């Protein structure tokens, strides 16, 4: 019991100390007027706005954004793995797809947002599409690179057992690629939050991104930052979920590496 508490303090004590320091400094800077409160509101003001708008934020906007994030991440996961695996298996597919992948990341969303609206309208799917576009890239790259990385000798062994490509893929390459894939997933889940936020800017009627844009238009910086706070919190929680899954999945895979 005691050691658990000790471990926890050692792990997170410093983090909370840092957070408290940071928040204090922040509060002090704003109170001292070094940064105007309408540009960077003080932590207490943000907290106040969070409490004041709690029903709206937690009851309506947070669930809406979370739904977009989860659906978008789901598609990214499926699409990213599919593309990554496809590119691994087919050299031609790789040569065709890679340039398009890079293009998909360098095209400024603002410039092609009309296309999204044209195709998806103002439904949840336009937000899902933006999320997908942003989050699937790290999954593809890390899946593809992860599958490349390895296990030549193990593969040869399985071939002598008469294994086909699929078997080798399943039994050797997937386990060996897992660390890389999960590294990509961690990035992707964070980007999913960004994606949903940007998606909501393209036109929405609910969600934290919508709320923050609306409040920004109303020059209510504290409400804007309250929404940002929740977005970050969502990102951190989702990140921790993937990290936890990573720990579980990699427990055995990391053996002997």
């Amino acid at each position, binding site marked *: 019991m005691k050691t658990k508490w000790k471990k926890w303090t050692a792990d997170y004590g410093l983090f909370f100390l840092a957070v408290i320091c940071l928040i204090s400094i922040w509060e002090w800077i704003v109170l001292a007027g070094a940064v105007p409160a309408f540009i960077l509101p003080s932590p207490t003001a943000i907290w106040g706005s969070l409490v004041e708008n709690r029903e709206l934020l937690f009851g309506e906007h947070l669930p809406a954004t979370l739904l977009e994030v989860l659906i978008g991440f789901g598609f990214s996961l499926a699409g990213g793995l599919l593309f990554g695996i496809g590119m691994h298996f087919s050299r031609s597919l790789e040569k065709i797809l890679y340039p398009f992948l890079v293009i998909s990341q360098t095209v400024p969303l603002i410039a092609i947002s009309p296309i999204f609206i044209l195709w998806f309208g103002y439904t949840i799917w336009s937000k899902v599409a933006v999320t997908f576009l942003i989050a699937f890239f790290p999954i593809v790259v890390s899946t593809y690179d992860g599958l490349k990385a390895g296990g030549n*000798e*193990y593969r*040869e*062994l*399985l*071939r*002598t*057992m*008469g*294994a086909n490509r699929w*078997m080798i893929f399943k*039994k*050797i390459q997937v*386990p060996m690629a897992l660390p890389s894939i999960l590294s990509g997933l961690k990035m992707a889940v964070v980007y999913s939050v960004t994606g949903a936020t940007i998606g909501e800017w393209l036109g929405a009627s609910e969600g934290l991104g919508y709320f923050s844009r609306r409040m920004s238009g109303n020059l209510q910086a504290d409400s804007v930052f309250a929404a940002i706070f929740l977005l970050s919190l969502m990102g951190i929680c989702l990140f921790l979920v993937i990290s936890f899954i990573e720990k579980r999945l990699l427990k*055995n*895979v*990391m*053996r*002997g*590496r």
Partner: protein
Amino acid sequence: MRGAIGLSDTLMLSIHDLTYAFQGNRPIFQKINLTVNPGEFVSVIGSSGSGKSTLFKLITGLLEPDQGKIGINGDFSGGRLGKVGYMPQKDLLLPWRPVLDNVLLPLEVRGKKGNLAEAREWLSRFGLSDYENAFPDELSGGMRQRAAFLRTMMTGKDLLLLDEPFGALDALTKRKMHSWLLGLWEDLQKTVLFITHDLEEAILLSDRIYLIGDGNVQEWKVNLPRPRNSEQIYQPAFIELRKELERLIHHEN
């Protein structure tokens, strides 16, 4: 004898005029010939780097000969992958699988459900029953090699290629394995091609020995009657054979 245990007379393995070189290097084999009859136990010895492991990779089909032909069970045409049981020199146990799952791998690969009871029985015969849930990095070197050997057995192939299976076993376990193999292996109806560095082992177990060196092979018949037993190594006749073989190796080099 072979007929009696149901093995046909086709050659289990035949290698014709095999030539092979790694890219840019001089040939490791030059037109070598080598045959193994069904039910035979044949050893391959040769100095380090002479190409023993490479020969095995050629037989399994991992490498293709530059010239010449390799036939498994009289079949010279098709691919050889999946036709023989191969135990590599490194154990190559999958680090993320416990021993039992490693041993069941060949069955999984062929899409069969492993017979757990049978696998457990084998594990205990190999002295690994306490370790079926241990991961490879928790095993000693010898245990790993036993697990790898067992995995090769589980392929269920008639021709087994064993690359130094007993290399990391302690004297006692090795002796036990020898006894076990000698006592059991004709029942197993297996044909074995066996790489070893241990001349005693080679003489004790084999019907014939191939010596590899300088791109050539040389055949040497072991004139010891079967059944044999592991006590024989102290007999003068055996020691004489060993000296003879050793002289042959020295002469070769």
